[in-house]
């Protein structure tokens, strides 16, 4: 198992390298280079000042060198071992402990690491709420549909799942906002952000005071998350429910399920202990793709609900040709994808004892 893990981890390195090479070449080839964007503020700059700023960026990022050299330089900066580079961009001695430097974002003028550290928790919060919810609901509905195959519940669920799967998120998001956060219809939810300004001054838990009920920070946050989470989850939830149903149906009619029933086990026991466990495999496969796709897929939702997460950051970075930021984001999501697959492969062994990597 350990050797397998090690092998997989080592294999990640060339994959990640490949990803960064592709992204770097695309960025290098795209029109409207870094210099154009950085010098936006420089419309009224004197030529020599502009030149000075250009020189600064050239030195810092080696922008005057050919793209392959720039790439190697970037790689040296982000890899935990490599040559030490000083402020002037001069290469120093080889070191094993220089640490990773994701660089400085051109348009924000801040270290990329700091920016990511701000944005990741927000996206993570959204997804940590969304993923378990999606799975829980999908499994419940899939299970019920499978055991009551052909019933009106099954037909109704199948139909509505298909419908849900077909609705584009951007439409659903705007409709939800327009109907459930609008004073003209039902103003049940807030329109934007992940917490309201007033809530920042409130205690964490809901309570009553002289002016009546105070919802508190926690409830306020949950209240803000409801619409975005619905938007994020309904699509994948529909797909997962259909998947669960099919996979459970298949196993319900398998020989081992009949044997279990024949030996006198209760139907619940058959369902949850035998059939369910075997039906998990396809769900695990899907989950591998879920981790990074939720990170990227939240872009639309984040924009509609004005949430400052990774999706928005990615779009801003690409629009602004912010090379360091784009590279870091693709690097992180690439890494997450690979980790997702690894976790999925590991979960197979938990769900199915026949699978082993030794």
């Amino acid at each position, binding site marked *: 198992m350990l050797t397998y893990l090690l092998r997989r981890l080592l294999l990640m390195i060339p994959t990640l390298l490949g990803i960064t090479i592709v992204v770097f070449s695309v960025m290098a080839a795209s029109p*409207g280079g870094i210099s154009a964007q950085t010098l936006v503020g420089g419309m009224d700059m004197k*030529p020599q000042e502009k030149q000075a700023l250009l020189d600064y960026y050239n030195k810092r990022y080696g922008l005057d060198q050919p793209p392959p050299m720039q790439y190697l330089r970037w790689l040296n900066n982000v890899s935990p071992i490599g040559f030490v580079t000083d402020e002037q961009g001069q290469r120093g001695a080889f070191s094993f402990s220089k640490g990773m430097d994701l660089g400085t974002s051109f348009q924000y003028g801040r270290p990329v690491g700091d*920016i990511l550290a701000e944005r990741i928790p927000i996206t993570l919060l959204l997804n940590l709420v969304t993923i378990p919810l999606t799975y829980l609901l999908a499994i419940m509905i899939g299970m019920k549909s499978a055991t009551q195959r052909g019933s009106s519940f099954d037909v109704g669920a199948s139909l509505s799942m298909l419908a849900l799967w077909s609705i584009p998120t951007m439409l659903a998001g705007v409709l939800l906002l327009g109907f459930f956060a609008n004073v003209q219809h039902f103003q049940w939810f807030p329109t934007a952000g992940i917490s309201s300004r007033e809530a920042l001054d409130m205690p964490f838990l809901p309570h009553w005071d002289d002016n009546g009920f105070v919802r508190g920070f926690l409830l306020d946050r949950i209240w803000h998350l409801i619409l975005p989470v619905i938007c994020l989850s309904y699509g994948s939830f529909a797909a997962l429910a259909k998947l669960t149903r099919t996979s459970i149906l298949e196993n319900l009619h398998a020989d081992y399920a009949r044997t279990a029933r024949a030996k006198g086990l209760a139907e619940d026991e058959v369902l949850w202990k035998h059939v369910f466990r075997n039906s998990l495999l396809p769900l695990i496969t899907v989950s591998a793709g879920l981790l990074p796709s939720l990170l990227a897929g939240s872009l639309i939702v984040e*924009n509609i609900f004005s949430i400052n997460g990774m999706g928005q950051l990615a779009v801003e970075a690409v629009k602004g040709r912010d090379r360091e930021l784009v590279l870091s984001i693709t690097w992180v999501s690439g890494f997450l994808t690979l980790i997702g697959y690894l976790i999925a492969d590991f979960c197979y062994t938990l769900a199915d004892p026949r699978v082993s990597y030794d």
Partner: protein
Amino acid sequence: MQKQSNSRDWVLYSLLSLSILLLVLAMYQIDRQWLKLTEMQSTMSEQAKAVRELRSLIGSGVLTAATSGEQRGEVAPAFQRAHAASKLPDYAQGDWSVEALGSNLKTITPLVSADANAANVQSYVLESLITRNPDTLGWEGLIAKSWQVSDDGLTITFQLRDDVSFSDGKPLTANDVVFTFNFIMTDAIQAPRDRAYLEKIKQVTADSKYQVTFSFKEPYFEALSLAGGMAIMAEHFYAPYLQEPQKFNESKGLLLGSGPYKLADPKNWTPDQGNVELVRNDHYWGDVQPPYNRILWKVIQNDSARLTTYRNGDIDAYSARPVEYRQLKQDAQIQAKSHNFEYMPPVVGYSYIGWNQQRAGKPTRFADPRVRQAMTYLTDVDRIIKDVFLGYAEPAISPFGHAGKQHDSSLLPYRYDLDKAKALLKAAGYEDRNGDGVLEDKSGQPFEFKLTYFQANEDTSRMVLLLKDLYAKAGVKLVPFPQEWPVMLENLDKKDFDAITLGWTSSIETDLYQAFHSSQAISKGDNFVGYRNPALDKLIDEARRTVDEAKRMPLWQQAERILYQDQPYTFLMRRQSLLFIDQRIHNLQMTKLGLNYGALPLESYVPLAQQKYGQ
């Protein structure tokens, strides 16, 4: 076996529930502390309010007998309007002003920030020596009580008020003014734009604690606004960054000034918070205390979400596009809760089509003024305004606004005239030689050009399609060329375009130097169409040197006539501001500077009955 594992599970579960219970208890404990803190905070803000009221009592002269100053009872001219507002019967302090931003701010540190939204935030925090009177457009003292301009226009001396202090309580003196200038002129500080403007100042000296003198290298028509309009930065706060300029250049929220509002933490605002929040400056020195307790900007990127938020009453103002504005004017819900405003601010910018006259060292077909005039005749601005902007715009004749003194009112906009345009094009050598409906020049090249425009603006896209049809009538082929912003900027820098449509912002008096002087037709200069006219250059230089307004205005008008004749740009239009504002905001008035909403010192307020935010 079954039983054993059950009992072990039981222990596990009870441990788990115990820890959850403990966690909940801990949360309650922390909440109790929080409540205590809030209590203390509200007590403190009440005390601050009491002190404020006391101070305004002193200021209004009720207690002057007890104190020494006699002139303290007077309200400085700059505060007159705000003072009059505070005497209205339903005037009340309190509540928040909440606005929406369409995109995240990258930084609100002065000098480093480049966009208008950040400038708007800073206007509540930083103050300058003088300010424009919204009724007369003349200058009035804010931090300065008086000033003198020398006869040659080369030195300006300001006498500062002695009661001005920054929001941390430290007094503002002449040293801070000198510091601000020196700070901006420090090369390591990333303020090239401000530096370019202040370059005309030779030096700033503090004559005494409350007197400061600006000396200029050469006479300059905007000398007073240059010196008096500089936002004063606090020396004790910003001086340490001279040692670490990079830290300042990369900072996101270093903002401290003498204005009526302040950042609760002047050093640590970061863009990831999304919202920008300013709180009342309890030490505010002004003659009138500001009405709102907080000014809050919410970031709402999605357009429909922004409108819904306005409908719900969670933001106080909504600025609409023309099509939207016309619809919303019929919308009963919006109408019931809003004032709506359609007005032309005097500083509104104009949009234009710039014709590139030089590309890769060679003159283009637009180098011929007859071609440019023909294009202007073909551009039916009235129709664009009617069809695309629904009448909420006026045609632009030149860079100067119609109401301003720089404008020569005898000039009339070019009217759409197909025959004149055809004749001009024919005179310039363009004819349909092969009968395909498109004009060709003498060498048989078809008259075809790409119009570069910013892709994300729907109104512009519609306008370009309309232009395509209009030009086609004269046999000129326009190829729409939508671009992303960074690509557009790069093309501008490289002068790599045929024609481009963009806008310039204006000020009360517009300087033509940046966009039309031939010295700016260099690489990456703002005269990116490569327009050169020595006669205009001379006029611009002379007007900029002329401090006397009566002599300067004829020069600008002469320059305008040259631009009108040459048409380096086809001037399109000035667009009205279309704005909905919540009815709870009172005392909104139109001034010569535009709507007074958000104009400082603040004049609008929320009456007590309509206030909805505490603290």
